């Protein structure tokens, strides 16, 4: 700082350590709990010295929570949401910034009106949509009397009910969360800062639109993509309400949802050591992504939301 303030500096460190303590305590406590046998974890207060039951608890959690399947589902969902969002929004932003066509403004407004609407506020109708993706087509089908046409073609009475359900499927877990105006907005802002000369030069060299996208825009967007990968992976992994609704089959559910079953209830054995071990396993992937990609994470967080 500007002047020497030894007392204040000491206080700063003390408060900072206190703050870090508050932030890190829950996880530290969970780690210790996960290493203890049942009789020690249910002692009040629990001993603060780690035990040697860590692997036993991890194995119990893995088997009881069916974590293998659920972690796999979580990876598919988080990966699918991340990849889907980035591909869809990057192409969309490219179309809006680098092309001029009749419905450009309409497309732009359509996408950006959804900027802040989280899935939580529209769960019920979105759920209905996902349970039958062809629902909106059915009135049109009926209106055009296509049943009569189908009956005529088949030669006997036919009633067609259009149905394509996304319940209990990876597509259902991923697709409704892929729509994101925020990513498109971020890419649009970024594309607008790219010098005009690059595009002019590429065109002069005879590059087509897709060549320009692949050879110039994509490499330039690398850091933005990395930042979004971190943010969206964490977002996808930590989804709760949507996977809770759309999956009923325990084989299709995600790890964060599955944890609920391991929380000891009033009549159960208080196996908090197993519950904490499971919680640690499930939180590990997104935490590792954030820690190892810290630089991009901070950049992505500050730029995406702002």
């Amino acid at each position, binding site marked *: 700082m*500007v*002047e020497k303030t030894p007392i204040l500096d000491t206080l*700063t*460190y003390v*408060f*900072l350590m206190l*703050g*870090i303590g508050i*932030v890190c305590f*829950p*996880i530290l406590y*969970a780690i210790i709990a996960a290493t203890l046998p049942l009789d020690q*974890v249910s002692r*009040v*207060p629990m001993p603060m010295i780690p035990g040697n039951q860590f692997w036993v608890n991890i194995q119990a959690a893995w088997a009881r929570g069916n974590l293998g399947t659920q972690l796999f589902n979580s990876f598919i969902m988080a990966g699918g949401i991340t990849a889907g969002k980035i*591909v*869809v929004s990057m*192409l*969309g932003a*490219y*179309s809006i*910034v*680098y092309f001029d*066509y009749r*419905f*450009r403004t309409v*497309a732009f407004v*359509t996408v950006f009106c*959804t900027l*802040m*609407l989280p899935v*939580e*506020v*529209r769960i*019920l*109708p*979105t759920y209905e*949509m996902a349970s039958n993706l062809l629902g909106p087509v059915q009135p049109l089908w009926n209106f055009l009397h296509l049943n009569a046409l189908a009956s005529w073609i088949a030669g006997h009475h036919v009633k067609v009910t259009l149905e394509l359900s996304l319940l209990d499927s990876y597509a259902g877990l991923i*697709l409704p969360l*892929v*729509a994101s105006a925020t990513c*498109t907005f971020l890419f649009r802002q970024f594309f*607008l800062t790219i010098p005009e000369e690059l*595009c002019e030069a590429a065109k002069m060299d005879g590059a087509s*639109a897709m060549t320009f996208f692949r050879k110039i825009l994509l490499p330039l967007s690398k850091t933005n993509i990395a930042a979004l990968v971190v943010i969206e992976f*964490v977002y996808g*992994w*930590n989804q*709760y*309400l949507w996977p809770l*609704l759309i999956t009923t089959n325990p084989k299709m559910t995600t790890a*964060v949802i599955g944890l609920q079953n391991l*929380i000891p209830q*009033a009549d159960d054995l*208080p196996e908090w050591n197993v519950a904490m071990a499971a*919680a640690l396993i499930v939180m590990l992937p997104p935490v590792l*992504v954030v820690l190892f990609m810290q630089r991009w994470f901070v950049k992505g*967080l*500050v730029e995406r*939301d702002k």
Partner: protein
Amino acid sequence: MIKRSIFKSKLLPYLLIGPQILVTAAFFYWPAAQGVVQSMMRSDPFGLHNRFIWFDNFSALFSDPLYLKSIAITLTFSGATALTSISLGLFIAAMANRVFKAKTAIRTLLIWPYAVAPAISGILWLFLLHPSYGIIALAIKRWLGVNWNPVLNGNDALAMVVMASAWKEISYNFVFFLAGMQSIPHSLIEAAAMDGASPFRRFWAITMPLLSPTLFFVTVMNIIYSFFDTFGVIHTVTQGGPGGATNILVYKVYQDGFIGLNLGSSAAQSIVLMTLIIIITVLQFKYVEKKVHYTI
């Protein structure tokens, strides 16, 4: 806005924007429209009979004491959550900004809870605050003399979900406040110091006013977080109980729609939430536009 130098193609731009429009239409616009229609319908739980009743669902909603109670709970809950996480995040960021050693290590220790799912944060705090096994619960009982029991006492349960929700949001606020503080020109702080302003005075007279756009933004994001993303915390920790004491609006939509099967009312509640978030977004954009004049 568009580039000066653009590509000419009839079909390609539509193909590029196509997927986005398709997903947006299928999972935003169609459901939103359905929601509006459904909010004006009364249907039996089996979906066999639908009757159009205009705004009866809404008037029923706002005369329902349970819904009004849920509004009050949501406001208390999000106010307490935002206040706790913002003040702690700001305080820790202000401390971290004064430190020059081990910066990366300090930042690393403070940002990782952002990656923890709200539901998992709920489980961690459920254990810490468990009336029979929790260590913090024990401390509250012993040192504060409170008969802590979130399983039976509504206020205790609300305090528990506030702690679980605020904890992981401290990291988020910390990142933004620290970034905001580091973007304040050092010359301003030095000039004030030369004029004899103490570190506290400098914080209140220079850092805080220049940080106000960040503070406003973070407040909006925290309110949105505590309104919607905390569903996971409520569902794992209290499930709206005891006696509806933690039944926040977003949880009530789920409970009435998917468990109570009162589709009309649930849809009406969704519309109320949607309107609310649209208002917040518009306000935020208006403020962000204005903000430009404050920057130096």
